[in-house]
């Protein structure tokens, strides 16, 4: 498919003063979803998110039209998100896709954690993440498209089943499943959970800080502590492991921001159980991506190599099993 040509045809519907699209380029990244940056000839900077031709949607993901609806709902809570411009229809010739405004800033965790350009915003970022999560978690249910509901035990059972299907024989995962099954927090009244709130999906501006929460494809209803634990998974600290929140902040700042924005009280221990569950989930997800290489669905070197990231989750889980109460 010629994405650039399809975008050029769509341009007048994206902005009344545009006649065509220019500079369409695919951004680096995953194979399950394409992200394209492009501009309209009136200067409007935009992003296209689309399912690649022939790619199966993520098994539990609600789809891109639902993702667009969630971004609109999140915007109403005051959380920073991109403006959705257009949800694609079959006649647009782009498949399952939507168009949103392109935000200025950085998503690469390595730069956010280390570059001097972010020195000014970094100290307040964990608090701000807590604040924004409380806004998201307060989204009225009536505003939301239909979503799946899950809790800690449900997530564990789902990922253990996936792990069993792969016949991978990883003792750290076997131990972690049994440990977390016994330690899993009881369910609470479910809220809108972003489901992938971490470096990579957070647009950070050198002056404005967190200006956009991206990639709502894994959103669901569940335990608010899931989002707070996920951003503390060591895999997204980019070397800065002593700063548990995304490599840029402390647990307490995250929890303070959350409480000050009206979020319900979340004990640190509950957050850390979700953090450990997050490492385990990320490990199983790496195995799943490896499996898509092994069965020929995606024979890319990227999919092969991600299987070797399982050991990073194992080393993190060993540390958590050694040190947590």
């Amino acid at each position, binding site marked *: 498919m010629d994405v650039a040509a399809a975008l050029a045809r769509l341009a007048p519907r994206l902005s009344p003063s545009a006649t065509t699209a220019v500079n369409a380029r695919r951004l680096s990244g995953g194979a399950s979803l394409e992200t394209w940056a492009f501009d309209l000839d009136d200067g409007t900077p935009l992003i296209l998110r689309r399912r690649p031709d022939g790619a199966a949607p993520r098994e539990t993901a609600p789809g891109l039209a639902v993702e667009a609806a969630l971004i609109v709902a999140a915007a109403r809570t005051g959380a920073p998100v991109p403006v959705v411009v257009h949800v694609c229809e079959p006649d647009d010739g782009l498949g399952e896709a939507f168009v949103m405004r392109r935000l200025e800033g950085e998503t690469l965790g390595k730069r956010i954690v280390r570059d001097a350009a972010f020195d000014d915003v970094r100290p307040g970022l964990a608090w701000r993440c807590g604040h924004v999560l409380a806004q998201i978690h307060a989204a009225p249910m009536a505003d939301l498209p239909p979503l799946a509901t899950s809790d800690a035990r449900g997530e564990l059972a789902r990922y253990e089943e996936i792990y069993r299907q792969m016949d991978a024989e990883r003792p750290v995962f076997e131990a972690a499943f049994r440990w977390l099954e016994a330690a899993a927090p009881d369910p609470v009244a479910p809220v809108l959970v972003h489901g992938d709130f971490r470096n990579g999906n957070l647009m950070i501006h050198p002056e404005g800080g967190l200006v956009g929460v991206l990639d709502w494809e894994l959103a669901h209803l569940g335990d608010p502590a899931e989002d707070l634990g996920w951003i503390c998974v060591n895999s997204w600290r980019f070397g800065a492991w002593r700063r548990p929140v995304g490599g840029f902040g402390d647990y307490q700042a995250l929890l303070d921001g959350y409480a000050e924005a009206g979020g319900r009280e979340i004990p640190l221990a509950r957050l850390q159980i979700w953090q450990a569950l997050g490492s385990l989930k990320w490990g199983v997800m790496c195995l799943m991506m490896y499996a898509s290489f092994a069965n020929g669905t995606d024979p*890319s070197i990227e999919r092969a190599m991600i299987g070797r990231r399982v050991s990073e989750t194992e080393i993190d889980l060993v540390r958590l099993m050694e040190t947590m109460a």
Partner: protein
Amino acid sequence: MITCPTAAELQTALDAFDRRDGPPDGRHVFLTRVADNARALLAREAALRETAEAEETERLSTLLGADGDFRELNRHLCQALRSGAIAPRDPALLAHLRATAIARIAVDQPSYCGLEALLDA
């Protein structure tokens, strides 16, 4: 034996990448970097695998009080954990898991900060 993927699978993916001419877009630049990482990983694995596997097998044998090859013993451990015969935070188990995790990360991703965190604990 390090799996998911094995070194042979990784080499196959690398060979396929090297044979292909991709368009010089962002995706190709990204994959080129991934391929370079894969080559470095394979070199580390060639240097470290034999010793790491022998040591892991020996630890498994001591932990389980049983003899066997790596695959048999590792499966035995997985089953013991699944059934509850070994508790998930048993100190002897954690000592084995710690040593194994350290040996694996030395091959897969020696600069990963979780190693420093673990050694600091």
